[in-house]
């Protein structure tokens, strides 16, 4: 333990011992004080009780001199006569001596008792104070919580009855100790402490030392405690530290604290995976429909692992680096696969942009004035939606055409215009969501649009290739003989023509996108 702190401890220990001794002495006198209080009460009730009582204790307790005792004895006799013969006070002139003496004694007693009571109260407070000091000293020995304890100690010192010079002495020792600890944590702190501080530093970017000085500052305005703001800058000394801080900032910007905490736990779970496959399985099964957000989440996990690795490098913790390396590689590989998948999807979305624009334009026209639009757009109602959802196989183009056939033949009821809500289609690929619209173009002529709707209403319809389901399609304006949008990479043009002619009974020219 450090010298200054030792001095502080010694000082406090000595103080406690001396205070305790004093308090113990007072404790022994407690009984006497109680008796004295008893006498005072009795004397107040009957001023002459001292002379009628045989209890010599009374007199002894008051510590009268032999002269005073003789006086009292004399008074006692006189008073005894007075009582015995029931004589008038005026008859016995000496009675005045008794009265005077009684009065004197009464005053004397009261003074003494008050004095002693004060002493008792003060010493009881000292005993309590000693206990608090001792508790604090024990707690201060545990350095980890020392900031709070020092603060409490300073408060206690302010409240205590210690002399100013003593108080200042202790305060100075506390402050010196505080500064010393600050120096230590910065320069030669143990690896464990530095690790914790580094993590804290990166996570909160708030100086631990600042906190401690703030705390002390509340009770102590001493300038010795002020730490320059420059130290915060100095905290990021190395490349690793800066990188950690950067990664942490990004993470905190994207995720909330609670989420980060849970993500850290997930990283630990990933670390306990036995092989790469287990990691892939752990994450793969959990893809959800919003792939962008899913990617962000995986990125977050990678960032967390990178931070850990950087920390391990910073402390040259080979074992930790080894432990993290393989899972991180696996996770990064997994991330690359994910972005490849997304890229392929984006490419598929890019198919036949012109057709898409036309379709969007037509839809906007409809939206602005639905009644005047000659072509009716019929939205599938919930019942139809359920039908779609109940198709056990993947919802492919063929399924949708079967549905259209159902409408055409009147097998499936279609509530036109009454249910202006796009039905979300059960995803035909895990994690995908599509909306289906049925376009009623003419009698017995329908177009169907299957769209992957985004949240942003301005670009509501993005067509994408669904590899598993072998294609989505949008067919519109069959009257004009045009298919505005086709995204049927896995369908041949003959197949497409066949399908379209099934509902339109018209030859159809297709434009773009067909394989």
């Amino acid at each position: 333990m450090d010298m200054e702190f030792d001095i502080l401890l010694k000082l406090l220990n000595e103080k406690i011992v001396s205070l305790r001794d004093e308090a113990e002495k007072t404790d022994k006198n407690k009984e006497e004080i109680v008796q004295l209080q008893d006498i005072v009460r009795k004397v107040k009730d009957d001023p002459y009780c001292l002379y009628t009582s045989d209890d010599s204790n009374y007199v002894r307790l008051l510590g009268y001199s032999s002269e005073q005792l003789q006086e009292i004895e004399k008074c006692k006799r006189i008073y005894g006569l007075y009582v015995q013969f029931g004589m008038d006070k005026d008859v016995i002139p000496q009675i005045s001596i008794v009265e005077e003496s009684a009065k004197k004694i009464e005053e004397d007693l009261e003074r003494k008792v008050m004095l002693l009571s004060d002493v008792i109260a003060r010493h009881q407070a000292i005993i309590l104070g000693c206990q608090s000091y001792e508790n604090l000293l024990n707690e201060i020995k545990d350095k980890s919580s020392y900031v709070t304890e020092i603060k409490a100690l300073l408060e206690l010192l302010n409240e205590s009855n210690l002399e100013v010079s003593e108080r200042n002495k202790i305060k100075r020792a506390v402050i010196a100790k505080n500064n010393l600890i600050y120096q230590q944590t910065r320069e030669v702190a143990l690896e464990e402490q530095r690790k914790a501080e580094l993590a804290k530093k990166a996570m909160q970017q708030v100086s631990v030392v600042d906190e401690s000085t703030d705390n002390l500052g509340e009770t102590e305005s001493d300038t010795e405690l002020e730490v320059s703001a420059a130290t915060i800058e100095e905290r990021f000394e190395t490349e690793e530290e800066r990188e950690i801080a950067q990664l942490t900032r990004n993470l905190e910007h994207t995720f909330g604290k609670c989420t980060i905490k849970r993500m850290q736990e997930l990283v630990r779970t990933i670390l306990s995976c036995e092989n790469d496959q287990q990691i892939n399985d752990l994450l793969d099964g959990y893809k959800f429909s919003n792939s962008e957000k899913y990617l962000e989440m995986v990125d977050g996990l990678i960032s967390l692992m990178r931070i850990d690795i950087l920390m391990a490098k910073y402390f040259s913790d080979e074992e930790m680096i080894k432990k993290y390396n393989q899972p991180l590689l696996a996770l990064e590989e997994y991330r690359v696969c994910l972005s490849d998948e997304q890229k392929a999807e984006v490419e598929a979305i890019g198919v036949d942009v012109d057709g898409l624009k036309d379709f969007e334009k037509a839809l906007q026209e409809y939206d602005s004035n639905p009644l005047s639009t000659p072509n009716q757009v019929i939205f599938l109602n919930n019942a139809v939606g359920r039908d779609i959802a109940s198709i056990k196989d993947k919802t492919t183009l063929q399924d949708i055409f079967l549905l259209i056939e159902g409408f055409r033949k009147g097998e499936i009821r279609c509530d036109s215009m009454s249910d202006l809500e796009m039905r979300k289609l059960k995803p035909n690929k895990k994690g995908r969501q599509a909306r289906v619209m049925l376009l009623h173009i003419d009698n017995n002529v329908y177009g169907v649009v299957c769209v992957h709707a985004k949240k942003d209403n301005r670009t509501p319809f993005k067509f994408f290739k669904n590899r598993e389901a072998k294609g989505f399609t949008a067919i519109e304006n069959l009257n004009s003989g045009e298919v505005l949008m086709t995204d049927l990479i896995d369908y041949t043009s003959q197949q497409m023509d066949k399908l379209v002619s099934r509902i339109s009974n018209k030859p159809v020219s297709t434009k773009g996108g067909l394989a």
Partner: protein
Amino acid sequence: MSFDVKKKKLENDIFKDVINKKVSLNVSTYSICSDLDLEEEMVSSYFLGNCKENMILGLEILRYLEQKENN
């Protein structure tokens, strides 16, 4: 602690966090799905505890709720 036990524990912790936040913020399942562009069925089945094991989904919802809380 075995991998499976760790995993289970974490699933439950995340689930608990999500439910607590959702209840305290009084956010509807519908708004979560529409804001996050997630499938309603999937999200409600998470809240019902039927796909609690989807920790990534849980974390995503938690993140959303935390952002909502901070705003």
